[in-house]
């Protein structure tokens, strides 16, 4: 067994990485590209091992691992490689009359030594994707993968040790004890993916060192279904987004459905029918569904399901096997709003449907709850789409599909309120790990006396004219007409 990770190890690690960062090695374009290419090699050469680790940890189907973890990462790395030069280039900024004559630019500089704490549900994607951002921006980085996906965690350690520059990119495995020791250190940024409960602990720890944080959390992402929709496609996409993405164990997973009382029976029929088409008559045997990550989470979900007024609302599924950590895709109809399942992020294969008198009420239901990471709407009604997009507050909004926004690098991905702060993906990842340094170049020409004491009425008048960008007035004052 490996040696215990102690306080001294944590502080030595940061000291070592800080030395590397201070030496400037991570700042160079070449280094960044080199490291990104190594990450690409990991994806290209080790996909079978990654798929196997994910199968060990989560029983994740090969296609899901291959697509949602490896392929997404590969795209993310390729994009960074392709665009890094552009991202690193300073942005020119316009200067104004007040600071004339001058020129200005904004430089993206690395923050320093950063910590990435990732999650167990997409252990590769959620570990490497932020690391891509950290490296692209020129930081030294420590990754702490989740102990709840141990096979993935140790594979990440092995691969990153094998391929990346150990003086600047490191992996620390461990759970609460190790994380606590890491959080005692001073970081220049902490990037955390996980629950809002732990996020509070992270942010409190960060406050001690004034460390900025990105918190990628979750929440109960609602799906609103209007009757004016293509129901078959709608239901397929919901099933794919719910059970087809790690069996509901995803931060952007549909958490509950809102639809009208009138339309609900159709939704339910279609759901039942398509679930069978997707996963067969006996979904407990399906190879296309991940299992629940561990008994803790299995018990958490069981508890939700077994609540008195909840268990009687199951209209589909409900089968469980604790031994195999399997729960069948389960649909519930109109569970009490104050039940556990309607107040905690489900993060599993249970899907409550909540019916309304009219769709209008869905706005109130969503607004009365903490802001979710995603809000989904299925409709062909243009007006409704617009109103939903404008007035529903969520990290992101997807109309007529589920979760696809996270694969689009031109959209920022991140939450708001209870669903997190900060965003990443594509250039947003680079920005998340960069400090935007303002640079102003001034010349010595044109040093106006109005800037300096002793002050006078004339100076005040000139300043006022300048502030109002009133050139005529400026000349008048300068020429002594006033």
């Amino acid at each position, binding site marked *: 067994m490996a040696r215990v990770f102690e306080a001294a190890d944590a502080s030595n690690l940061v000291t070592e990485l800080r030395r590397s960062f201070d030496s400037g090695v991570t700042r160079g374009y070449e280094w960044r590209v080199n490291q990104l290419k190594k990450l690409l090699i990991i994806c290209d050469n080790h996909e079978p091992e990654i798929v196997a680790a994910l199968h060990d940890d989560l029983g994740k189907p090969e296609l899901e691992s291959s697509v949602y973890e490896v392929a997404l990462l590969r795209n993310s790395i390729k994009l960074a490689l392709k665009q890094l030069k552009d991202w690193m280039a300073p942005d020119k900024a316009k200067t104004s009359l007040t600071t004339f004559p001058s020129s200005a630019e904004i430089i993206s500089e690395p923050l320093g030594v950063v910590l990435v704490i990732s999650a167990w549900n997409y252990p590769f994607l959620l570990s490497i994707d932020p690391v891509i951002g950290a490296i692209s921006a020129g930081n030294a980085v420590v990754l702490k993968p989740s102990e709840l996906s141990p096979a993935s965690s140790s594979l990440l350690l092995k691969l990153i040790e094998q391929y990346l520059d150990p003086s600047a990119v490191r992996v620390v495995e461990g759970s609460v004890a190790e994380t606590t020791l890491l959080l005692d250190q001073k970081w220049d940024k902490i990037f955390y993916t996980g629950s809002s409960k732990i996020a509070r602990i992270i942010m409190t720890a960060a406050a001690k060192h004034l460390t900025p944080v990105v918190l990628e959390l979750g929440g109960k992402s609602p799906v609103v279904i209007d009757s004016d929709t*293509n129901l078959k496609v709608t239901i397929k996409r919901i099933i794919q987004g719910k059970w087809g993405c790690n069996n509901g164990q995803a931060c952007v997973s549909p958490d509950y459905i809102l639809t009208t009382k009138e339309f609900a029976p159709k939704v339910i029929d279609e759901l039942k029918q398509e679930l069978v088409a997707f996963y067969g008559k006996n979904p407990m045997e399906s190879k296309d569904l991940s299992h629940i990550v561990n008994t803790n989470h299995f018990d958490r979900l069981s508890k939700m399901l077994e609540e008195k007024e909840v268990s009687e609302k199951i209209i589909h599924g409900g089968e469980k096997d604790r031994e195999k950590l399997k729960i069948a895709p389960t649909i519930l109809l109109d569970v009490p709003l104050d039940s556990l399942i309607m107040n905690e992020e489900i993060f599993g294969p249970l899907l409550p449907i909540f019916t309304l008198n009219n769709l209008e009420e869905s706005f109130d239901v969503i607004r009365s709850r903490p802001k979710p990471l995603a809000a989904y709407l299925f409709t062909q009604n243009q007006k409704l789409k617009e109103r939903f997009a404008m007035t529903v507050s969520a990290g*992101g909004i997807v109309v007529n599909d589920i979760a*696809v926004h996270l694969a689009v690098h031109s959209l920022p991905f991140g939450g708001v309120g209870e669903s997190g702060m900060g965003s990443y993906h594509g250039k947003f990842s680079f920005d998340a790990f960069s400090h935007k340094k303002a640079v*102003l170049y001034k010349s010595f020409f044109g040093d106006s006396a109005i800037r300096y004491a002793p002050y006078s009425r004339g100076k005040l008048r000139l300043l006022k004219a300048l502030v109002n960008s009133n050139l005529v007035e400026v000349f008048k004052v300068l020429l002594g007409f006033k």
Partner: protein
Amino acid sequence: MEDMKETVEQSLREMRETFASGRTRSVKWRKTQLRAIIEMVKDNEDKMCDVLFQDLGKHSTEAFRDELGFVIRSATTALDCLDKWVVPRKSNLPLLFYPAKGKVISEPYGTVLVMSSWNFPISLSLDPLIGAISGGNTVLLKSSELSPNASAFLAKTIPSYLDNKAIKVIEGGPDVATILLQQQWDKIFFTGSPKIGRIILAAAAEHLTPVTLELGGKCPTIVDHHSVSKDMKSVVKRISGGKWGSCSGQACISVDYVLVEQSFASPLIEMLKTTVKSFFGDNPKESGCLSKIVSKKHFQRLARLLNDPGVKASIVYGGSMDEDKLFVEPTILLDPPLDSEIMNEEIFGPILPIITLRDIQESIGFIKSKPKPLAIYAFTKDENLKTRILSETSSGSVTFNDVMIQYMCDALPFGGVGESGIGRYHGKYSFECFSHEKAIMEGSLAMDLEARYPPWNSFKLAFIRLAFREAYFKLVLLMLGLIKVRDQ
């Protein structure tokens, strides 16, 4: 204090109701409020200059330059640009997602808290307010109790100009701040010290509230006399203006200390002395152009810094103090001990240490050994030194051949890094600071690919792999059965 708690909760409820009504989201409302801010400043110029004089002894020219004028400009910029800022940004999606559309909408956070500072009590209150309003938020401003006249003025005047159901002012000190921080806000914007910054951040963690912290730090000024000897007059004027001309050095972007080569220290000091005299005359206390120290406590802090024996011995100019008038003379120190308090805490007052180096290149190492400052100033024409400063040091901003004016440039983000803060504002960045960037994606229900859905098989896997690579030609071949599943 129970009363205060009640007041705060009542205000918060009202602001949340207002926000929920959607009123503050409309561009029209935002513009009306921005116009009202400009009107308020213009209507109350004299009154504002009065309160700034009472609280800080600020000369009206200084007050206009750093506060009133600044606010008018900031509000005007927001007013002029708001239509542009609120437009959703279209995002290009890869062909794979066709015919889906993507865009980013800036949406208001909700109800936000702005805690301002006493040194620029008008601009550091109203400037963040402009950002919060531009973003479409309801906002509570807590003004600083250390500038009581400005604070009272804001509390009295703001409600008569702005929508008082959406924008509120609460006066008070740390006890009020504590009550405010117990509440849930959608964003907190704080200007002040790193010490309080930590408290704010920790309190915000409780509710997962995003925070912008505008702090300070010891902003160094590098004088590379080799390359700027011809312009030394301007250099010295600008340094003097940056140290003593803006609230007597009580500014977060003030020049904190100067780094210069040993050989040039004496000429520099002589020139500084001459400039100080030309700015403030032989009797600066009576000049009317120097702000006073804000409070007894701060006066005593500065006195303590200066009374350190090692520091006292390093005074080469000034050093006189008058506690009754809260006046500290412009003071220059030559090489005070580097381990003294004055070289390790933000000075925030009219004292200027000159630190000598053998070679100006050593300034890089010197700055790197200290916490990241809000600004670095460097007077140099040496391109190599410029590059080294930019790439080897870290700070909120870097200004070459001038001081403090980066603050006036609204095309530049203003904010710190590390010990000097988190987040940024000014111009469009103020709008962004108070907006959540919401990603919107819209798919089409008309087109649907079977390959997206289980049950999985090797064809679907191959299909998705190709799609991800955006290898569209191969994708077509695969669909036509012209290449084998395992080929790609």
